[in-house]
Each structure stands twice: as C-alpha cells, then as structure tokens.
C-alpha cells in the first residue's frame, strides 16, 4: 500500500512551488489576451511562395500597419495581429501584400472583434465564471451534506480545484510570454471544462473516503482517507490516461483553431489527476487532525 497521505508534505511542497511560480509569472507577464477579449483583428495568411518574416514586416509597414505583430505559423503561413480593421481595409491589405510580395495568398483566415463585442465578452465571461463557481460550490456542499462536516469537504474540494485552475492559468501566462500563446474564449471554455472534470475527480475520491467512513474502516481518519485514495488510484489514473490519449492525439494532430481549448484540457486534466490523489484528501486529513504544520514543508519533521 502506498502511503499517499503520509507523504502529504511532499505533495504540498510540489504544489506550493508550482503555484508560487505560477503567481509570479502571472504577476510579471500577465496573460496575452486574444481578440475575443481585447478587440482587434487576427489574420492567418497562407502564401503560395515562401515569404521571409522581415519582408512581410516591411510590406505591412509600407501599407501603414507598423504596429502589426507577426508570428510564423508553419510553411508559408503567418499569424498577424492588428488593431481592428474593416472589411474594405482587409481586402486592400490582402491585395497590397499580394502585389508587394509578388505571390498569391492561397488561404486566409480572419478574426476581427470590435471593442463593443470584446467588452461584452469580458463582462459575460466574468458572469459565466461567477455563476459556474457559485453553482459548483452549492453543488459540492449539497453532495457532501451527509458528511459529518460538509463545509470542510466542500472547502477542501474547492481548494484542490483552485490549485488546478491556478496551474492552468499560470501555464498559459508562461506560454504567452515564451510562445505568444493567446487567451481566447475557447481558453475560458477549456478552463470551465477543467473545472467540471476536476470536481469530478475530487468527488470520486471523496465518495470513496465517505464510503470508508460509513463502513468504519478505521477509527484513524488518516487511514480511512488513505484507503479511499488508494482505492481511487486505479480509476483516476486509468480514466485520466484514457482521456489524455485522445487529448494528446488531438493536440498533436488537431487544428490550430482549438489549440487553446485542447491545451487547457491537457494541463487541467493532468493536474486534476494529481490534485485529486495528492492534495484534496490530504487537505481533509490536515484539517481533521489539525496538523496545520504539515502545510509548511520546513516543519514536517515535527509534524
């Protein structure tokens, strides 16, 4: 039997490092907001002939788009971010590039969002996230209503959930800085899906602990919790792996348009497995036994 609960200070230490570096990254780099939230125009152009990045930058500047941010996105393909442009301007831009670079644009994608829509998207996203959080909080407290201290179970579940969310958001902050990864509406979708899946994992583990409590496995809550976690390991790992098989395949092969969704799911599901097995139940034990010092890694010897 693996002692998941006994090693809790190690798990807390790992998570603390991840979360603190994540918060630092968020504070320093923030997130790169996509057009959904910040308004503007995002264009993907595919040129028939190879085009140099510098050449393209020069052409765009000549057309009056000095502030364009350009990223190469594969063979002959570029991703360009501009302030919002109209359809007429877009047609002219394409024609200008075709004549200036002496090549044809074989395929193009465009996403343009006005400040009106962006402002509304931001507002609605905030509302949606708030409603989802309240709904899930209410649901968790209801799901654990028959536990001796339902609030504790609910709070521990929410803490484990926040842990997953902070890590997902932090990874996007780092990728935004390192690889230009933008945060769009699909990222929010991915995050909310992660919330669903993550709570799912935690609920399954807590369900097991609850069952062991009812059965009276042991009078020591630490053993009860560890049994519950142990019994969930097979399920958590297998389900997680099965889902990750497909998600990884989708990430490697799937379209660029839903990359943020898939990546959020990939990171979220991975940390979700970890937090459900290594964080959520352990937090309950700490609370139950009032071993608050276990949360501080340097105090572990005395714990």
């Amino acid at each position, binding site marked *: 039997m693996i002692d998941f609960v006994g090693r809790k200070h190690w798990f807390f230490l790992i998570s603390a490092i991840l979360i603190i570096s994540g918060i630092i990254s968020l504070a320093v780099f923030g997130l790169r907001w996509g057009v959904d939230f910040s308004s503007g125009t995002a264009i*993907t152009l*595919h040129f028939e002939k190879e085009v140099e990045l510098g050449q393209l930058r020069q052409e765009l500047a000549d057309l009056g788009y000095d502030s364009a941010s350009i990223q190469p996105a594969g063979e002959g393909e570029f991703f360009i971010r501009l302030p919002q442009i109209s*359809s007429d301007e877009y047609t002219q831009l394409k024609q200008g590039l075709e004549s200036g670079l002496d090549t044809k644009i*074989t*395929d*193009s*994608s*465009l*996403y*343009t969002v*006005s400040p*009106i*829509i962006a*402002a*509304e*998207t931001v507002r*609605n*996203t905030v*509302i949606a996230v708030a409603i*989802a959080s309240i709904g*899930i909080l209410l*649901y968790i407290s209801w*799901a654990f209503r028959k536990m001796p201290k339902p609030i504790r179970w609910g709070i521990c579940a929410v803490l484990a959930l926040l842990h997953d969310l902070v890590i997902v958001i932090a990874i996007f902050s780092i990728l935004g800085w390192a690889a230009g990864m933008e945060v769009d*509406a*699909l990222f*929010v*979708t991915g995050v*909310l*899906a992660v*919330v*669903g*899946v993550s*709570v*799912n*994992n935690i*609920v*399954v583990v807590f*369900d*097991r602990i609850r069952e062991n409590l009812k059965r009276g496995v042991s009078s020591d809550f630490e053993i009860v919790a560890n049994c519950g976690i142990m*019994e969930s390991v097979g*399920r958590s790992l*297998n*389900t997680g792996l*099965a*889902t990750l*098989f*497909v*998600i*990884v*395949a*989708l990430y*490697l*092969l*799937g*379209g*660029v*348009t*839903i990359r943020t*969704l898939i990546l959020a*799911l990939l990171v979220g599901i991975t940390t979700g497995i970890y937090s459900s097995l290594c964080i959520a139940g352990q937090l309950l034990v700490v609370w139950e036994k009032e071993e608050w010092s276990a949360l501080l890694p340097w105090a572990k010897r005395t714990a």
Partner: protein
Amino acid sequence: MKKGSTGLLIFIIILFGISLWVVWPNNEIRGHTGFPLGLDLKGGSQLVYSANLSGKDPSQTDAQALEGVKQTIERRVNAYGVSEPTIQIMQNEQGSFILVQLPGVKNIDEALKLIGQVAELDFREQVVGQGGNTTWVIAKAIGSSGQEEELTGKYLKPNATPRMNPNTNKIEIAFEWITEGAVLFKQITTRNLNKPLGIFLDNELISAPKVEAVIEAQGVIEGDFSLEEAKTLAIQLNSGALNVPLTEIGRRDIGATLGADSLKKSLLAGIIGGALIILFMIIYYRVSGLVACLALLVYAALTMAVFRLIPVVLTLSGIAGFIVSVGMGVDGNVLVCERLKEELRHGSTLQRAVEQSFTQSWSAIWDSNVTVFIACAVLYWLGKTFGNFTVVGFATTLFIGVALSMFTQVVVTRAFLRTVVSSGLAKSPRAYGVLEA
C-alpha cells in the same frame, strides 16, 4: 439469465442498429446527408452587424424591425447562392446585433456588399429598346417639388399586409403610399394603363401585374404566393421601406483548406485515441474491458445519432466536447470495472460482484457528472450571448455526450456484463483483470 435481461439486450441491439442507420452518411436525416459542418470545418465566414434602430418606424417594435432585417439578409444571401446560411438576432443592453454565418463562401467580399445594403423595392416599366427587346426601367415621375423622381420603396408606408382577394381567392399584398408616393404612382399608372408594371425587390422581379386603372394612394402586389410567403414578403417590404442601417462590428473567416485540414486531422486524432483506449481497456480489464468497449461503441453510435437527429452542427470544438464526453464515458466504465475487480478480490461470486459494482459506483458517476452539466449550461449561455459558435459547439456536444454516457453505463454496460456472466463464457476472476487470486 435474469428475467428481462434478454429483452433489454434485444432493445440495445435494435437501438444500436437504428443509431448506425441514422449515422450512416448516405441516409438523409432532416434534410441532410452526413453531418452538417460548422464554419471551422467547412470554411466560410461569420459576420456580426450592429443594427441602428434609432431611425425605425415607431409603430414597429424593435423585434419586428430586426426580424425584417433578418429576412432581408436571408433573401439576399439565398439569392447569392449560399447553402444553409445562419442568421441570428441578438439583443441585449448593448444594442441589437445581427449575426450571419455563410458557410463555404469563397469570395466573401462580394457577399459582404450584398448584406451591407439596405433592402430596395422599386417599380419598373417596360421599355422597348433597339431591336425590339423589352427591358425593365425604373419608373420615374415628376414629384411635388417639380423634380423627376424614381418610384422606390422609400415612398411606401411600412404597413404592407397580406390578404385574400375575394374575387380570385389568391393571396395578395396590400400596400399604401405616402403622399409623395401617391403623386408619383398616379402619373405612372396613367401612362402605363393596360401595360405591365414590374415590381422588383433587390433587383428581382416579384410580379408584373397589368395596370387596369389609374391608382393613387394604394395598391396590391399579386403573385403566386402562399400566405406564409406573402407574410414574409410583407415583412421584407416593411423593413425595406424602413432604414435600418447595419454596421459590421465583427467578422470571422475560416479558410476553406484550413477547415478541411482540421476535419481530417481531428478525425485521425479521434481514431488513434479511440484505438488506444480500446487497446488499453482490453489489456487492463480483459473481459470487462471488452464489454466496456462494446458499450462505448454503442454509446458512440447513439451519441452521433442524437447529434444528427437534433441536428447538432459539428464544429472542431464540438468534436473536442464529444471526445471529452467519451473520456467521461470511459470514466464511468472504469469505475464499474474497478469495482468489479475489487468485489471479486473480496471473494464475491461473479453475479453478485456485477450487481454490486453498479450499485456502488452509481453515486460517484452521478455526483461527478453534475458539475460537468453545470459547466456546460453556463458555457452554452456564454457562447450564445456573443455568438461564439465554437463555445456553443463544445458545450452542446459535451452535455449531450455526458448525459448519454450515463445512460449507456447504467443500461448498456450492465446488460452486457450480465449476459457475459450468465453465459458462463468467462468464469475466472483473472478474466476480469484480477491478478492476485
């Protein structure tokens, strides 16, 4: 075999058969063969217009005025030859918006010009040109200001109504001119007496009735239309006579090759991922894994059948939602398989272990899926409010998928496992993945 178990098995097989038939690409379901594909898979454009309702007729509600704009756009888009356009009205405290989806349009710049214009109704008279060809020319007359003016929809009162002509028993549309329109119309009907007068909407001939008397203030448009069509036309006339200017505020184009490429790649990803899941389940859980995989096949067919029946427009994010729901489906089955192993390890008989594994895992399956439903409901609302079809696609398929996966776990997996157990084909606990005896 348990009582009722055979019946259930037959039901499942029939359900699977029906699902396969529904999913089969060549069968036409609700007017479609194959899945209707969203913009991101088919390529095409989505446009968002903000409608300025400040100049609308006070007698019309905002909703009526917007409905007219929607109809006008629909008519134009159809005339342009776009298959299956989607046009939606969105209203909120920020204003009124019109969302137009044009799947598969290559030369969007042309289509844009069509949509952005205001509806135009005009009356034309026939002119015999050189060589005896007759052409339609917009009818002009001297207005009250003494200037020559074209007779167009801007002189119509926005109160055109469809009605039944008691003499012919045909549906017609009655309209009225404003004072200036009546002045023009009188002159035009006088000089075109006993000649046809063409009524054109967006440069399309609707009808060409013969002028039988000099008319001033009002008239009718006859034509071979049903009441529904006449209503639609009346709405269009009324909005055409109105000025509801549209401003483009958002646009999303997805390149056709990008769309096709995405579809191919995500299908491949789905197949590879699915194959890995099946392999993994069978190696790890043996017989119960195989049973779970069969149940998952039923599940996949059933879900896709529901998608086609609704019908759900497939988007890339929708496929991702479906895949996550398959993950949740696997989850439920894994929960059951794990329970089964456990019960067998504790020395239960096979029958008892199967029953126990379902009873015991139900609370976890139910509890854990509720949060996904909450997230889906919120996402669906979020996607709808700003017309983000990718978010809506994900929420829809994930919701349907998770709901159906709960059904398959409880009904299908259980029926299959019971059948396998009672058939006596696999008796050893090892066959269910229990390694230690």
